[in-house]
């Protein structure tokens, strides 16, 4: 089983590399660091790489306090009989298809961002980050809760026996012990967020450009998956443009792999 999945990944990887060769030959490093992408002329992927990193990073910053707070509350403060309800609810939310979130994002979030920040266009990097945050909240929260819940009772008992108050026990004994598991939860959530396509595509604005200044999250942008989603159909049959999209896919693949690998590394260490 493990062998089959490993073989599949290796084959997929090899296929992506092979398909990327012609654009790499044509663009060299300009593919990774070029700022312009004009189909038929030049293929610089940096705006999309930037967009993916920015949107996922921002989503994480926005959602982490809520996800961790929710996890700590569920694991440490909520009476045990409600815990499974919360867990079930989180799983339900995590299973909602991305397109549904995307439609809600278009219907509600875009307008909200536009009005709140007085923008002309509500389709921005921030909108995409907010939507992604909402989408990965249940995943991160439930995995982080698992990590907290798995901390052996003896750590709590010991800390209590030294005269600590509940919040001190949680902060100084439970959370540190659960930290590898929490880190794993965050990385796996990030991996999921980075690969999300349709919802992001609907609200990010679709502009292949790094905003000026670079941290202006009220600008429109483009992530790797949203670029792929937009251009794949039109690129079929072309040589260089198709190859460029494949190279973009390879980049995303590697980025998500790193996150997943980190996530699993921390989850392993947590056990």
């Amino acid at each position, binding site marked *: 089983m493990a062998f089959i999945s490993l073989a599949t990944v290796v084959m997929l990887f090899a296929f992506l590399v092979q398909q990327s060769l012609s654009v790499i030959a044509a663009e060299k490093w300009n593919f990774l660091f070029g700022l312009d992408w004009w189909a038929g002329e030049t293929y610089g992927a940096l705006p999309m790489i930037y967009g993916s990193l920015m949107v996922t990073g921002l989503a994480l910053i926005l959602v982490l306090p809520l996800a961790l707070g929710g996890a700590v509350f569920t694991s440490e403060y909520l009476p045990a009989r409600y815990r499974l309800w919360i867990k079930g609810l989180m799983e339900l939310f995590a299973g909602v298809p991305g397109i549904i979130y995307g439609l809600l994002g278009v219907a509600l979030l875009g307008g909200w961002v536009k009005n709140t920040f007085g923008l002309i266009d509500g389709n921005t990097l921030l909108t995409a980050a907010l939507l992604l945050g909402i989408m990965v909240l249940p995943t991160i929260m439930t995995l982080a809760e698992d990590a907290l819940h798995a901390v052996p009772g003896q750590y709590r*008992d010991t800390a209590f026996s030294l005269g*600590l108050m509940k919040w001190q026990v949680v902060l100084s004994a439970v959370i540190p012990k659960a930290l590898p598991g929490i880190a794993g939860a965050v990385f796996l959530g990030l991996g999921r967020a980075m690969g999300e396509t349709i919802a992001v595509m609907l609200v990010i604005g679709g502009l292949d450009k790094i905003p000026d200044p670079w941290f202006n999250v009220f600008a429109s942008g483009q992530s790797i998956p949203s670029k792929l989603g937009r251009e794949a159909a039109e690129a079929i049959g072309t040589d260089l443009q198709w190859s460029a999209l494949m190279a973009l896919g390879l980049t995303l693949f590697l980025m998500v792999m790193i996150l997943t690998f980190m996530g699993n590394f921390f989850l392993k260490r947590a056990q």
Partner: protein
Amino acid sequence: MAKIKVKAPSQSLNAFSTSSETGKTLPPKKKNHLTLPGLENPMVEIENLDFYYGEKQALNDISMIIPKNKVTAFIGPSGCGKSTLLRCLNRMNDLVESARMQGTIKIGGVNMHNSPEDVSVLRKRVGMVFQKFNPFPKTIYENVAYGPRIHGLKNKAKLDEIVENSLKSVALWDEVKDRLNDSGLGLSGGQQQRLCIARAIAVEPEVLLMDEPCSALDPLSTGKIEELAVGLKEKYTIVIVTHNMQQAARIADFTGFMLLGDLVEFGFTDRMFTKPEKKATEDYITGRFG
């Protein structure tokens, strides 16, 4: 013939609810403190302690005095309530959702109260060492400094001093003084358990509770912990739960024998092991059951 009251749980529960609702129907409970020489300096006074896990009564009307600066052992067959009684003394049972306690426990003459702050203060006065040695995944130094630091001590020199003194008290200082920044989990089992004792005494308790502290250790490490317990009683009142009667005989000044939630007999260790008053005690210590 031993007079052991074994109440049916449902019956005692009814009695309990009647007494709490009307306060009259139940005959007043009698104190049955044991008056022994050496008990005139009480550290812990337990009066008419009843304890329930949900519907199930785990301790039946226990009254006893645990003297200061002595080692007191609780012995008895598995499930008789030794750990439960021990955990009443620092209110660890509060953490069990279904737990309910009735009666009074005084530590150093002061009644236990219920607010979280009071329970926290109480636990600083009554430290605990657990059956399974469980250092935190931190350095040796951080394990010992953990309690004082969280209770607000920031002065590095003072912390260093507490760490050194605590480790010396458990005869671990010489073994670890050159590697205080190594993980506590890298020590041997016996050393880890002594580290846990050091961690407990670093917050300067008056009473030290030990729940089968040697059951996971080899004989050599067990001997060291026993030696420690005897040495530590100069500064602390030690209460130890043990399955091992020889251990109680070796280190305890006083021993209580428990059976099915009752404190059957409590008194001088020597006397209990040579001339037990109750038949049940005799049966247990001569190995006829348990």
